């Protein structure tokens, strides 16, 4: 049963537009993550938050910005999308350094 919820499932947009993806977890976890999965299925960490505090901020373009209102929510905004941003964006959560659970992902297509 899904406990990490992502919306939308899919999004198609044009180059230069702004998009926002939402993520909510109902597991009571204190740590949330955003991962990007490319066309080769490689998974790369983008951001990690612990109790609303940013603890991991990988080298991603500045047009990507995470937003956390509380420890159950971690959204991702992309200003002015580029074609290389087309990918699946996966949200996940864990309690501290424990087991990680993923959402179903948001597939972004930039045309």
């Amino acid at each position, binding site marked *: 049963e899904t406990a990490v919820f992502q919306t939308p499932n899919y999004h198609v947009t044009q180059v230069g537009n702004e998009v926002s993806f939402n993520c909510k977890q109902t597991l009571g976890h204190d740590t949330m993550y955003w991962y990007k999965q490319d066309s080769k299925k490689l*998974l790369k*960490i983008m951001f990690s938050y612990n109790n609303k505090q940013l603890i991991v901020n990988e080298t991603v373009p500045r047009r990507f910005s995470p937003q956390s209102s509380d420890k159950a929510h971690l959204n991702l905004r992309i200003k002015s999308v580029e074609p290389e941003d087309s990918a699946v964006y996966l949200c996940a959560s864990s309690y501290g350094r424990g*087991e990680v659970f*993923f959402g*179903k992902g948001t597939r972004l297509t930039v045309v």
Partner: protein
Amino acid sequence: GQQVQQSPASLVLQEGENAELQCNFSSTATRLQWFYQHPGGRLVSLFYNPSGTKHTGRLTSTTVTNERRSSLHISSSQTTDSGTYFCANYGNEKITFGAGTKLTIKP
């Protein structure tokens, strides 16, 4: 940074055969986890196995921490086992994934 290496990159088996997937990692801070992703699907946690051996159904995970390796064994494979298997390990406040093993089970 931490490295996570998976082998083989792809594996094709006949239904009923056993599958053995390997994962080697560079960090000693082990929070080893195995995931399954079927085509177009989300990542499903199979095992959270920092050390030792765990079983569930036809799946067995064995992690040898001091040798920095883990394995996933699938016995009597079925066509529904087809998909991509990832291992991931924790280090430097983040989880690093291997490149995955694409498993194809033929009927």
